[in-house]
């Protein structure tokens, strides 16, 4: 069993490389305190705006803060946002998808309509509208993102549930008196799970991209957070004098998004070979 998994992993290069890259980001976030040379908001007043050098490999910003440390700590808000938003989206999306798909009828129409509503404004605009109401800040960005993006889970869970509901093993279970809750949790959900996992791994990078964009626009993370989007936004005015300030947080962001994309592609190849590109 173990051997087989390893062999599959060796063949699936996307999964392997993506997995390792994701692991690096996760380690960066979890052990930032151990890896980073300085605390992220420690100002070295004598070393403001230093270009990359031995002491500060990524240079320092206008407060004299070490950019390497800030980039490493920046993994924390990025992953926190992605994870929390994903959990909320899944909670809403899967529940509604199961109910709409299994019971059909009016409930289904209602859920589908509300879901379609969230598609009819570009996600970033809708997120911004929600932020107008609940206010700026990273936590609000998480809530706004989740409120806007749950429908992608509903859509896929609903479709799969509808297909599974008519399958012989589900009908048989109904015929031997399985209760609805057990049908949904024991028979349908486990069979929808692979699709959910693939979707999650592909939507995490989207979430990271859009939330850093909001931070970049000043609606998300607020100073002195080491958030990459915020760092890019703060460094924008020094683009002519201190370009390293814009390069490194951006690279970290690209690395993270790329890692999850790769990992997600690999997962999809493994769990849903039909979609292999």
């Amino acid at each position, binding site marked *: 069993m173990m051997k087989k998994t390893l062999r599959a992993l060796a063949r699936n290069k996307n999964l392997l490389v993506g997995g390792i890259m994701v692991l690096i980001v996760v380690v960066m976030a979890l052990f930032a305190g151990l890896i980073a040379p300085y605390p992220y908001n420690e100002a070295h007043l004598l070393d403001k705006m230093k270009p990359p050098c031995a002491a500060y490999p990524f240079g320092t910003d206008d407060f004299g803060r070490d950019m390497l440390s800030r980039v490493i700590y920046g993994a924390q808000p990025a992953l926190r946002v992605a994870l929390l938003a994903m959990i909320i989206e899944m909670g809403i999306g899967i529940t509604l998808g199961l109910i709409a798909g299994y019971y059909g009828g009016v409930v289904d129409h209602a859920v589908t309509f509300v879901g379609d509503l969230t598609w009819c404004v570009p996600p970033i605009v809708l997120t911004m509208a929600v932020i107008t109401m609940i206010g700026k800040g990273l936590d609000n960005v998480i809530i706004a993102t989740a409120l806007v993006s749950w429908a992608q889970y509903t859509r896929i869970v609903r479709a799969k549930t509808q297909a599974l509901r008519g399958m012989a093993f589900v009908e048989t279970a109904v015929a031997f008196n399985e209760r609805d809750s057990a049908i949904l949790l024991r028979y349908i959900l486990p069979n929808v799970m692979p699709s959910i996992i693939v979707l999650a791994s592909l939507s995490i990078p989207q979430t990271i*991209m859009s939330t850093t964009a909001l931070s*970049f626009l000043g609606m998300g993370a607020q100073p002195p957070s080491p958030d990459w989007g915020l760092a890019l936004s703060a460094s924008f005015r020094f*683009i002519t004098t201190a370009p390293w300030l814009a390069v490194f947080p*951006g690279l970290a*962001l*690209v690395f993270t998004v790329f890692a999850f994309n790769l990992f997600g592609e690999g997962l999809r190849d493994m769990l849903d070979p039909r979609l292999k590109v």
Partner: protein
Amino acid sequence: MGRYCIKKLLQGLLMIFTVSVLVFLMLHMMPGDPVDLMMDRKVDASKKEAMRVQYGFDKPLPEQYFNWLGGILHGDFGTSIRMRQPVSKLFQARIPVTLELCGIAMLLELVIAVPLGLLSAYKKDSLFDRIVMSLSLFFAAIPSFWTAVMLILIFGVTLKWLPISGFGSPSNYVLPIAAMVMGWTASSIRMTKTEVLDVLREKYVLTAYAKGLPHRSVMVRHVLRNALILVTVVVFMSIPWLIGGAVIIENIFVIPGMGSLLTQAILNQDFAVVQACVLLIAVLTVICNLMSDIITAILDPRIRASMGGGE
């Protein structure tokens, strides 16, 4: 076909109506007095009451809604409190700018993504396919705002070839559009390829070969023609994302379009503007979806049959 279009149109109208109600309620769902929210500083009670009457906040909600909607239908989107101008006037100057940006970006995306996606699918596993796929995977991972920053750094700051902000001359378009297009084109290439590969696996492609059609006819009449249906969906689905992208890009390059207007309005809590922007963008998206539905129905007789109702 007619019934199908009417059905889709009604669905779209219902959608827009619901969005308009939600947008209207935005102001009222917030904690606190709408008048307070609309003013940048504290005003005394009597003036507040006067404003309440002036804006009609003393009337029941449904009446307020229909007054608001009636205004919009007559081109009156309310007044921006921060900029002290009618919103419609702000729109007049800014909508064309955003449409222009998005239009050019979409055209470019189409011209680049569709052929590359097709070729990649057709020459699956070739060197060409591998290069295109690797590059697209990489570019899809770059957020547009960082692409913008890097483009500015390289072409604006270091090479000094192109202006980094402002709007007016053609050279102003190059960097913003490049930043908008890159990430989305990359994703669209991958989507197009998936769709074409799906068609290539269809049984009717075998039938086309079996009846003796030359390879090129099979590709053009059976593979391309059917992949077109799915590609249409991909293209129209990318429109909302392009608009979303424009919001960010306009801010970076200081372009006076809808996106920068919306961002400013949100940061300044300028509600009338936010409401009008969101509603307008929603209408645009619904229209795009409607067009996508109708075009797919024209291209695919099965959809006409299944959605038209009746046998």
